[in-house]
């Protein structure tokens, strides 16, 4: 792995169209035939995560571009499992044309999805999958892969930065119990076991939050000091915290995250050993909408559409920023 580079993203699935371009095509809907502006719903785990805030923006963009109707609703579950189930139920009551969902946990919405299936409302899973029930497709990054690639990106930085033959990395995990945490952790472990030069020094939860990550990183520094060769964070908000702790301790080691959050990428300009694996939530949303509409139009849609994570480092940071946040 380790592709990336240009700002254009690829979709591995043949059925998916290029999301970034579709957003620009106002008449794109007509090509799918059928209902031109469906009423849809999108339920996400929590707007606490910038990642989902970007989805919200993409959703609103799609609304104003006329890809979906203005009655479409966006639901924030505030990380509360019952809230998400309620949101799905409400969407069913509102008889949406199809439902997009990023499940807090894959298993937490089993019944809700069952209800949607029973009501013949198509479901598109996005970013976080669901474990049971019928879906049109699953549009997402591969989180295990993201974890592994980001860890390996960190390793490549460490190799470039140092000269030893073994490197000690610490990991900052996301919310305990969340599927992304488990998946990215698995990817991290894969990287550790596949690369002999890579050792896990410590793992602690930063709960996907900047200030928790900051405190934990401070304590890591106290405990391990110079032993730390690099930091892998399961998302970019935590990378910001780790960065701050390292800066305060006058240390400079590679840090990688996941997400491609603007604020983190902006730190790259004066640090060549910072990086992230950008997810492309905007593209996930538009792709999901495309797929849902295609399904309504009776077309076949691939079971999974993987939006490949985009490796962002100092090299391509400014391109990335101007492509996605310009």
């Amino acid at each position, binding site marked *: 792995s380790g592709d990336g580079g240009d700002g254009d993203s690829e979709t591995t699935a043949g059925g998916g169209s290029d999301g970034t371009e579709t957003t620009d095509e106002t008449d794109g809907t007509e090509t799918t035939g059928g209902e031109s502006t469906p009423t849809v719903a999108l339920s996400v785990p929590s707007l606490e995560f910038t990642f989902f805030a970007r989805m919200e923006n993409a959703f609103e963009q799609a609304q104003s571009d006329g890809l979906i109707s203005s009655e479409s609703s966006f639901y924030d579950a505030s990380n*509360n499992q019952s809230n998400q*189930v309620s949101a799905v139920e409400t969407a069913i009551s509102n008889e949406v044309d199809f439902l997009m969902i990023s499940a807090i946990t894959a298993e937490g919405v089993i019944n809700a999805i069952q209800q949607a299936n029973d009501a013949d409302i198509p479901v598109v899973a996005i970013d976080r999958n669901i474990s049971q029930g019928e879906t049109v497709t699953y549009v997402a990054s591969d989180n295990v892969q993201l974890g592994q690639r980001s860890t390996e990106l960190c390793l490549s930085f460490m190799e470039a930065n140092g000269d030893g033959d073994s490197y000690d990395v610490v990991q900052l995990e996301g919310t305990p119990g*969340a599927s992304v945490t488990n998946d990215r952790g698995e990817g991290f472990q894969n990287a550790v076991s596949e690369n002999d030069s890579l050792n896990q020094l410590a793992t602690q939860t930063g709960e996907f939050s900047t200030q928790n990550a900051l405190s934990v990183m401070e304590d890591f520094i106290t405990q391990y000091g110079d032993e730390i060769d690099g930091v892998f964070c399961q998302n970019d908000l935590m990378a910001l915290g780790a960065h701050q702790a390292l800066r305060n301790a006058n240390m400079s080691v590679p840090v990688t995250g996941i997400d491609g959050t603007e604020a983190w990428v902006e730190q790259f300009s004066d640090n060549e050993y910072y990086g992230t694996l950008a997810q492309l939530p905007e593209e996930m949303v538009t792709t999901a909408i495309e797929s849902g509409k295609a399904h309504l139009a009776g077309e076949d849609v691939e079971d999974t559409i993987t939006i490949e994570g985009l490796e962002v480092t100092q090299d391509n940071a400014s391109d990335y920023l101007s492509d996605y946040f310009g």
Partner: protein
Amino acid sequence: MSQSVASGYRNRFTVSAISQYGPIIGLVGLYVAFSLLNDRFLTVGNQMNVLQQVSIIGIMAIGVTFPILCAEIDLSIAQVMEVAGLTVATLAVGARLFEGSAVPVPIAILAGLSVGAAFGAVSGYVTARFGVPSFMTTLAVLFLADGLGLIVSGNRPIIGLPESITNIGGSRLFGLPSIVLVFFSLLVVSQLMLSYTKFGQYIYAIGGDRQSAERMGINVAAVRLGTLVISGTFAAVAGLVTLGRLGSAVPTMGAGLLLPPIAAVILGGADLFGGSGNMVGTLIGVLILGVLQNGLNLMGVGPSGQLVAQGIVLMLAVLANVSGEN
């Protein structure tokens, strides 16, 4: 006791209605408003949804009404709910901590409820015996239960639960969702307990004036302990029915469930400092929270608008409640 004069001397007027008549104004107002604003709001289907959506919080709210009436608090309910649900699930399926040692469903359920009762007993004992404020003991139990939940579940969701478990919270009986039936049964039993048993009477006496109650010969320690055991047990029941509602056991299923049940109790007119309130009030409080969210969801109000609307409407609803009392 340091209650203001103004609220004291009207009690006679509204007799026991004081905490029922008041809060209901806010609820009725919400119903009128949402009925006018949205056609689907007052449909049977949607009202059934609302009931289902509030049931888990409702069960926890009923449970925590006991300690609150007794001038105690229980901060551990969300985590106890989680660990109890996870215990039932892992035991029944024979997964994770109990890999390969599945037990019959009734025993799994009993174990789950016992876990809830046991946690309540721990905080209750330390509070009643040593006079440690329940705020602190239940906070400690919050951590304990959260940790145990991670251990029991290995941090991962559990699926494939036997129907005999998921039916408790996820089936229909006499055309009503079973979870709603569980909620209402517990509500009725609890109100009867409060109104017609010595235990109920003592809760009010202790909540009103602990020292006087003690001097009048009440076994204060037993009652304080009892209220916390009840709230732990009810939290466990909430965990059990959640399995049916979600269709799985998820290690994060308690997230965001600390404040709403307690808020519902206070919204229902109970005094946070003990001695007044009842289960009908709690029901109304639960419904206000549930209807508010459901109505805003139906209207498709976006996340930030929803928060602002919730804040404003909540403020108005409590104002209506309080002026309804006076």
